[in-house]
């Protein structure tokens, strides 16, 4: 049951080849689902990038009217929403899916069909959100959807309905995936893979799932309240009806700040895998890395109000949230120093993944420092809602997350697809991305401090913003171009006939001990783990090198059956929310009944379907 793309996979297996669309729709293989996540998220990433380029084009000169104010507001709302929920989170999910089972020595995730369900719900949620463009009603209230602008009175169109409902659909996907990976990491580890021996990427992913499980319920509650306000006329956030706009901000940021760590912790994990391999030296201070990750996550739930200093919460609240935010710099600093300690004294192999990993450290330091700068509440009274903040979080989320995810893509590409990416093009990608990124976002620090607010569709000439904005737009074009180089590299590698070896980088972890791409059952024999770098240990035990692993028959290995019920259940979820949007239509209740029927019928059949065969 290998895939059509991985044409040589399973060549020696006895499982019959299943290819084509149907195989992808019914798959419960964590690796195929990982690829589906990656491909979908990359397309959403390109859409979000295109939105960013339109934003930059509009801001290139003062008083510009390249796009209308209304469309501009849709663009920045969808850019933020897309990049967070449809690009960075699912790109991380690609790595969770493909590599958590491989890194812990498992054959699949704990709940393979739930995994498929998560993916399809995510995809439908993303399509649902973006379909709003077809109705000229894309969300336009900012990714943070502040009350009471989001109320029916001030946002009468369908725009914010798409947002409130789209995010609920995506939340279901994230929660289902969160449960799945949490249980997978706790229960599916190979013998000897103690918690304190897990690869750092698995540790950071584990903490990420915990954050998802604790923070997504909060945003779900907030979105349901907002949906009730908008669809059924309640007044949770309507001041005239006794509602409170501050309630929304607290609920949103109790989710929103842990969300930042949901976006960055997997990146920390990826970097912690790459640096040791390309320094030929184990991760420095493993235990400190684990605990600093836990500490960041814990503190991440106690700092949400630093997004709200300008609301005037009072001196006590401001002080507490200022100090708690500063505290986060300590474990984050520990991570950065430990990464440097990993490289220190090593033998650095400057391959493309290492370029991106080192670039990540350099850029993330800057994002971290500007973060400390606006943890001081009074200074934040100037900086919040300006381009200084835009610069800060792009240094964290682009300079941090995207650099790390790109590093991960170059690092694990041969394992996922069985082909190497070109080193020369990879390095060209890196330099273009580094230059384009800094040219786009560094000037934003300055222009923000010089008084340019965020989320403005234009600015008048005379405030001095034009020259830096022009520079930023040029940078954005270079940044966009760098990803064309990446796409070209991917196409070239897919067409190449050269197969990647199982262990191209002298890897330390279990995934490099099996063929590239892995066979459907991952490990013919579940490995036994004796240390933190199991594959290095094995290679040392065998005198430095192991023979290229052969593809073997998977006879006798039980794998979960393909199933279309997760897909249909996801269709049911989508239909249910669409029906909810049309609850006032003539046949509204009928739509809802039909959608619920599809959902329950699918779940019923899913439950009674034999899982293995």
């Amino acid at each position, binding site marked *: 049951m290998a895939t059509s793309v991985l044409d040589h996979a399973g060549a020696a297996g006895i499982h019959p080849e299943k290819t084509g669309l149907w195989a992808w729709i019914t798959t419960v293989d964590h690796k195929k689902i990982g690829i589906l996540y990656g491909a979908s998220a990359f397309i959403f990433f390109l859409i979000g990038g295109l939105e960013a380029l339109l934003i930059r084009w509009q801001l290139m000169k003062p008083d510009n009217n390249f796009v209308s104010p209304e469309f501009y507001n849709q663009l920045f709302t969808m850019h933020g929403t897309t990049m967070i929920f449809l690009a960075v989170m699912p790109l991380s999910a690609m790595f969770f899916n493909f590599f958590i089972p491989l890194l812990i020595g498992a054959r699949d995730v704990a709940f393979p069909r739930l995994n498929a369900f998560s993916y399809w719900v995510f995809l439908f949620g993303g399509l649902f959100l973006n379909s709003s463009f077809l109705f000229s009603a894309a969300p336009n209230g900012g990714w943070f959807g502040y009350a009471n602008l989001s109320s029916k009175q001030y946002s009468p169109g369908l725009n914010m309905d798409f947002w409130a409902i789209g995010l609920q659909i995506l939340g279901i996907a994230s929660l289902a995936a969160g449960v799945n990976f949490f249980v997978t990491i706790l229960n599916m580890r190979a013998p000897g893979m103690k918690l304190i021996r897990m690869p750092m990427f698995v540790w950071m992913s584990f903490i990420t799932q915990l954050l998802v499980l604790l923070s997504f319920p909060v945003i779900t509650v907030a979105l349901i309240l907002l949906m009730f306000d908008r669809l059924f006329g309640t007044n949770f956030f309507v001041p005239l009806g006794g509602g409170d706009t501050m309630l929304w901000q607290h609920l949103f940021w109790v989710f929103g700040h842990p969300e930042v760590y949901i976006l960055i912790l997997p990146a920390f994990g990826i970097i912690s895998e790459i640096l040791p391999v390309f320094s030929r030296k184990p991760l420095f201070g493993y235990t400190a890395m684990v605990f600093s990750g836990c500490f960041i996550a814990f503190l991440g739930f106690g700092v949400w109000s630093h997004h709200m200093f300008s609301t005037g919460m009072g001196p006590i609240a401001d002080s507490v949230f200022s100090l708690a935010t500063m505290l986060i710099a300590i474990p984050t600093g520990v991570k950065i120093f430990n990464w440097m300690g990993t490289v220190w004294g090593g033998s650095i192999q400057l391959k493309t993944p290492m370029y991106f990993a080192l670039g990540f450290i350099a850029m993330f330091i800057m994002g971290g420092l500007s973060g400390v700068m606006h943890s001081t509440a009074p200074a934040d009274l100037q900086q919040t809602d300006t381009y200084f903040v835009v610069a800060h979080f792009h240094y964290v989320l682009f300079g941090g997350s995207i650099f790390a995810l790109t590093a991960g893509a170059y690092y694990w590409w041969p394992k996922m697809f069985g082909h190497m990416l070109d080193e020369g093009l990879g390095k060209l990608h890196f330099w273009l991305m580094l230059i384009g990124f800094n040219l786009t976002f560094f000037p934003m620090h300055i222009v923000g401090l010089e008084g340019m607010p965020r989320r403005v*569709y234009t600015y008048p000439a005379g405030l001095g913003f034009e020259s830096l904005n022009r520079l930023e737009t040029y940078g954005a074009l270079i940044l966009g171009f760098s990803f064309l180089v990446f796409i070209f590299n991917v196409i070239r590698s897919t067409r190449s006939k050269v197969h990647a070896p199982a262990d191209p980088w002298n890897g330390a972890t279990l995934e490099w001990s099996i063929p590239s791409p892995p066979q459907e059952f991952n490990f013919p024999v579940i490995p036994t783990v004796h240390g933190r770098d199991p594959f290095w240990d094995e290679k040392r035990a065998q005198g430095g090198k192991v023979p290229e692993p052969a593809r073997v028959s998977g006879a006798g290995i039980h794998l979960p059956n393909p199933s279309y019920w997760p897909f249909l259940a996801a269709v049911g979820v989508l239909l249910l929310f669409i029906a909810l949007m049309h609850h006032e239509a003539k046949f509204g209740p009928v739509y809802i009944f039909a959608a619920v029927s599809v959902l329950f019928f699918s779940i019923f059949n899913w439950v009674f379907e034999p899982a293995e065969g």
Partner: protein
Amino acid sequence: MDHRFKRWRSFAGALLLLTLFVVAVGSAQSVQYPQSTLHPRGDFALMVDKLFRTTLLWATIVFLLTEGALLFVIFKFRGKPDDPEPKQVHGNTMVEVIWTAIPALVLAMIAVPTVRTIFRTYEVPKGADVLQVEVIGHQWWWEFRYPQLGLTTANELHVPVGRTVAVKMVTQDVLHSWWIPQLAAKRDVFPNRSTTLWFKAEEPGDYPGQCAEFCGIQHGRMAFQVIAQSPEEFDVYVGRMQATAVRPAAPAAPAADSTAVAKPTAAGPALTTTTLAATTTAEADTMPGSQLFMMKGCIGCHSLNATVPMGIGPNLAGIGRRLYIAAGWLENTDANLAKWIQHPQTVKHGVLMPDLGVTDAEAQSLVAYLRQH
């Protein structure tokens, strides 16, 4: 190629890139930024700036040390594939304790002044000599009231230099944020609770500010000015605004009004006298501005009396002398004012003022009328 030379070449390349980058960004620094947070002219802004410079200093030091260390490590420990395996180090407790403790100490250096400043930001000055100002946010303009003086105005706030201003803010509709970078900072504006800010302008000047919380389609065009002037000039301003109560804002006799247009009063602005006189003579059959102000429905939303705090739209008393129109960004010229009156939906799409079908001649007449106020 020699390995060492290759290393130097990449180092030189990196240096060249960095230089180009600094030049590119630096070349923009000859520009004037009137809305800057970096050139404080008010006590609140100065206090914030001082704290900002403390954190900036520490951030720069840490930045240089960490990025420098990173570059050093990269250049120092570059290896070749056939190099022997480096020493396998798993950690060093002493080093790890040190680099946990040092950031904590640096943060303490920032934390103490931070908390001290936080408490000061909430100490709104009280007393009879404090000028009270109420800010009311509207989609997409600012209403300003002086409760002690009984005056209301919009989008242009006059304050005396050297006198503390205590600002109390609410919104009429959605959340906004009142941001005056050079004098104070920003504070969000809510519908169901009032927030405060305070400042004392140290130097006279025209200070731009704008809404900083996304508030809908025209969030980008919700600016305002604070005009800090000498106490004497401020008193003149207050006197002139209070005089709008007795000026006949209600309909006057058409004949009397057209005279007024042709010969603006001394209080009216001098700059427009000649041009307006010419146009109004040419369009003699156009209704006078005072009547148009009623007939076209302007008066339904706009008051011309600064002592009456009513109005769905901005109070227009003193509009003739304001620097900007359409909420603080469009220069207050006759041409712009006429265009704004005629085509508000073109000038600022989505704004609550509808296109009222004002002809060119009527717009001229209205401009002339507003110039007296």
